[in-house]
């Protein structure tokens, strides 16, 4: 499937599905090194997003992402609300088109990363969702530069995000509640990095249907 507005809607639907399916896993990851609300927050947030999307008129990919942004911002709570909210809002600004080309995919991911860094001020290595978005942006850039098709750019980004999430396991956290835990955070995957990988996988799955 081309990465158009229909795809974007499907991405949101599969995102809601994956956060629901992985709700307990995300709660447990967050309970281990946080305050235990990540899975619940995302599930609740995306449930409201689905409902609003059903009622909304959207023309561009950006319209879909903006709706996701404003809903997550006010319905998710925790750190994920403002972080994902800002990410999707910035991504929406650069995807005001009906179909994404390879450069648009890169722009989407880079804008999301910028938004998260602007809000949360984390760097790669801090054991946060930036450890997924950072590698994702880099992989997207590399793939697009090598002439990959939009979906393959997205796929490269997603694979990098997934690897990035796993790579958070041995890290000591330098941001968020986990940063209070010191060495006790080691061995646990960061829940925000994991949910990022899940959301990007949902984007690929929506296109592969």
């Amino acid at each position, binding site marked *: 499937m081309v990465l158009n507005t229909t795809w974007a809607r499907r991405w949101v639907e599969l995102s809601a599905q994956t956060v629901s399916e992985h709700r307990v896993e995300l709660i447990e990851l967050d309970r281990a090194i946080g305050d235990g*609300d990540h899975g619940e*927050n995302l599930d609740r947030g995306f449930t409201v997003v689905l409902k609003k999307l059903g009622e909304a008129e959207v023309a561009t990919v950006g319209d879909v992402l903006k709706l996701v942004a404003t809903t997550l911002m006010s319905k998710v709570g*925790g*750190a994920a*609300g*403002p972080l994902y909210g800002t990410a999707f809002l910035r991504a929406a600004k650069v995807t005001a088109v009906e179909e994404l080309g390879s450069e648009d995919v890169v722009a989407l991911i880079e804008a999301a990363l910028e938004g998260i860094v602007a*809000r949360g001020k984390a760097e790669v290595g801090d054991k946060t969702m930036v450890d997924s978005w950072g590698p994702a942006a880099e992989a997207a850039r590399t793939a697009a530069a090598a002439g990959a098709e939009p979906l393959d750019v997205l796929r490269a980004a997603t694979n990098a995000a997934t690897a990035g999430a796993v790579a958070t396991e041995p890290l000591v956290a330098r941001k*968020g*509640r986990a940063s209070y835990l010191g060495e006790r955070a080691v061995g646990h995957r960061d829940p925000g990095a994991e949910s990022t990988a899940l959301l990007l996988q949902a984007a690929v799955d929506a296109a592969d249907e």
Partner: protein
Amino acid sequence: MAVTTALVIVSHSAALATGIRDLAGQMAPDVEIAVAGGLEDGGLGTSFDLIEKALDQVLVTPEVNAVILTDLGSATLTAESVLEFRDDDRALLVDAPLVEGAVAAAVVAQTGGDQASVAAAATEAVMSFKGSGSRSANAQPPAAAQAGPVPASVLGAEQPSTASGSMEQPAAGADRGSRIVRSVTLRNSDGLHARPAAIVARIAAEHDAKITINGVDASSLLSLMGLGVPGGADVEIAADGAGAEAALAELVEQFETGFGED
């Protein structure tokens, strides 16, 4: 002076937010303090919508502004997100200890402090409530706060220590070069509480002189209150500079007339 700055307390916990509002409100009966505590369903967490509502509650006119204090991480992130969405520079988010900052901010807001003074009071609050105020020999100013330039009137500045209590000068003060020292009795039964402290701070700020009360910077409202001088106690006023004599005269008059209190 009119109260123009309101406070917004943002916490993951509704109980914590309202508790801090009540505590800070004790010293600031005319200051609007709004809360955004917990989630809309009553659970622990931060709510974008509740923060928006709290800001709407206090920012009722263009003249009113607000200082926002938060507890941890996501409360700060969410408050920042609300401000980014609103694009309204009447609200300022400060990086301050929540309890001490709220109390200090409320006190300064009650005396008519502007947004910058209220913000500075919050961010400097850790120092003001530390032991015996700013006379601690190891006291260091905290690292740069988000509040911007800090008005001298609320800084708990280090002052050279004076030999307090050993300078009984009932008549005109002794001269050490341009420095004048005078001992006076605090007649107010409630001691050097917020109202008289605010008067002292205002007088100190209005004169071209460096003034201390028992060694602390007299232009710092919070340092003065931190002294905890009880009614009936003697204090030592030291003044240095061109306006020293005038400042001292005004201060002595206030002390001796009990700051207009019964």
